[in-house]
């Protein structure tokens, strides 16, 4: 990423946990989105001018990004700016709550930016307009190219305050960008902010790349590549662009993920028709065999505490989901419904496993408790698979493919997201077709 270095200093002006009337419940589908007013941030007139962007418009642009974040949750209703009566600088100092209540706002975000010594200083406040109180006041400093992240960080702080859950806006999604005819697809690794901006392609498309995943520290990616016609798991450093093959396995390795502490890669290794799950320690390079069974064992996923692994196995005759201890012992099957199950992913909250289910020719994305009970199917489609969790364990991103005609016409692959309540299903816009999405953790912790 182009940003090399940014400073993050949180000066807490005041952080009131005072009782307020505003609380957004995200555990149910919210049919009554909370009206929130996001005032354009005031740009301090002493700000230096930069060639990077139009400094005068910066405050407004930041508020637009925040607005889009909240709109995408389906839980908030950002109000139209032309109805705002108070100017950004005054609103930030002392809002006239009656004015904001008049347009039905229940919450108000105001802020101020100053560009000085090539740094971007940000201040923002969250107000409860019903109770006429300040709820959060925070300030921080970063570099100007990070202005979109400023909006995402403000969004996360406000979201957290209003819902009681941590946010997911200051995150990125790694995915496979697809172009070309269906039988000769060109695939590249794509990296973007969760709102679809700042797209970067990390590989050239000369060889097939599949199923990328982030490591917890967010600057390494693991993925599978057909480089030199040898399908293997690779590591890619986002900062340097350097790619290296993982281990020296004498056969196909695939389905790679990182362990929660980022120290190991867990993956499948296929040899003589059998696929088992292996780990490799990235420092010591020690390889451990975790499953030992003539069935296909793949799509492993660690629990967030690193103690358990859920995975996909057809040892019962058909694809099902199993849970085992991370040393491979105590393998237990957890899915028993009709149909087949695949792509299990353990929620970062530890409470649920998301999965793909295929039944009677239809594909479902669903969640279940980690013992297999409480199965809930969230969405059904002709073809969709591979859910990935937002860092707060409340939203899933996955991909869908459409039916194609006799020559492959009409085919498209797109990224979609859905809340685990089953609500707010929406497409994530990408420049090209896309598949295999994986959500990073919060970039700032």
């Amino acid at each position, binding site marked *: 990423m182009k940003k090399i270095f940014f400073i993050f200093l949180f000066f807490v002006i005041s952080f009131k946990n005072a009782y307020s009337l505003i609380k957004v419940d995200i555990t149910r589908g919210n049919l009554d989105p909370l009206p929130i007013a996001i005032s354009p941030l005031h740009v301090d007139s002493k700000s230096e001018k930069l060639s990077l962007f139009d400094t005068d418009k910066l405050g407004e642009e930041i508020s637009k990004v925040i607005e889009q974040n909240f709109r995408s949750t389906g839980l908030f209703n950002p109000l139209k700016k032309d109805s705002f009566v108070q100017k950004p600088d005054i609103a930030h100092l002392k809002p006239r709550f009656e004015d904001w209540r008049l347009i039905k706002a229940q919450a108000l975000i105001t802020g101020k930016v100053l560009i000085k010594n090539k740094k971007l200083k940000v201040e923002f406040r969250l107000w409860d307009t019903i109770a006429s109180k300040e709820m959060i006041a925070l300030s921080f400093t970063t570099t100007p190219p990070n202005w979109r992240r400023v909006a995402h960080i403000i969004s996360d702080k406000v979201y957290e305050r209003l819902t009681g859950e941590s946010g997911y806006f200051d995150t990125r999604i790694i995915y496979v960008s697809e172009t070309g005819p269906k039988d000769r697809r060109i695939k590249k690794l794509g990296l973007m902010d969760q709102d679809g901006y700042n797209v970067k392609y990390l590989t050239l498309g000369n060889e097939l790349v599949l199923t990328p995943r982030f490591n917890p520290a967010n600057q390494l990616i693991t993925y599978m590549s057909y480089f030199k016609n040898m*399908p293997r798991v690779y590591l890619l450093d986002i900062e340097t662009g350097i790619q290296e093959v993982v281990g020296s396995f004498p056969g196909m390795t695939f389905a790679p993920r990182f362990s929660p502490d980022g120290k190991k890669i867990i993956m*499948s290794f296929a040899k003589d028709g059998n696929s088992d799950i292996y780990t490799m320690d990235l420092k010591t390079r020690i390889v451990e065999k975790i499953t030992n069974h003539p069935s296909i064992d793949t799509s492993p996923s660690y629990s967030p505490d690193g103690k358990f692994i859920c995975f996909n196995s057809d040892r019962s005759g058909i694809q099902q989901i199993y849970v085992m201890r991370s040393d491979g012992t105590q393998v237990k099957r957890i899915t028993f419904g009709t149909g087949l199950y695949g792509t299990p992913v353990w929620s970062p909250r530890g409470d649920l496993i998301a999965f793909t289910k295929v039944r009677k020719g239809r594909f479902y994305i669903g969640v279940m408790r980690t013992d297999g009970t409480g199965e809930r199917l969230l969405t059904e489609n002709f073809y969709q698979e591979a859910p990935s969790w937002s860092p707060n364990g409340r939203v899933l991103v996955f991909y869908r493919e459409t039916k194609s005609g006799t*020559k492959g016409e009409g085919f498209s692959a797109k990224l979609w997201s859905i809340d685990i309540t089953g609500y707010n299903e929406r497409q994530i816009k990408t420049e090209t077709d896309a598949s295999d999405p994986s959500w990073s953790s919060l970039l700032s912790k």
Partner: protein
Amino acid sequence: MRFNKALRSLFIVLFSTLIISACSTAKKAADPLKNDVYTGTETVEYLANGVPDRVFFATNKFNLTTAARDTLRKQATWLRKNKKITVTIEGHADERGTREYNLALGERRANSAKDYLMTYGVSGKRLSVISYGKERPVNPASSPLAWSQNRRSVTVKAN
């Protein structure tokens, strides 16, 4: 009178039965799928005269049909005659499954073919295996016929 009526009814019943049974045994237009395995030749290429380059599988399966074994025996004969040739056996799956499992399934299918060739005297050193999962369909359509054509293991000359 009654007897005539009865006889007539009998004839109608017999006649109808003949027609119905004739219809049910009449051949349908050549159905290229048998037990969910593609049996046609549309997508088949040839390594040499009379030596088809591929075998097909049922959904989620990797076992060889009688037709598959027949094809592979022909490949083995050809490989034993042409000792310098090495091949790559590609394993493929249809699009109706999860991506990672399909990579493993493709590898399984390729190894089914490889193992069979080895039992017919071809050295394993001449046979390398690669799986493409569902990434390289030969037929891009979304239909049961296309999917059956894509569930395949293809032997490709490597040198």
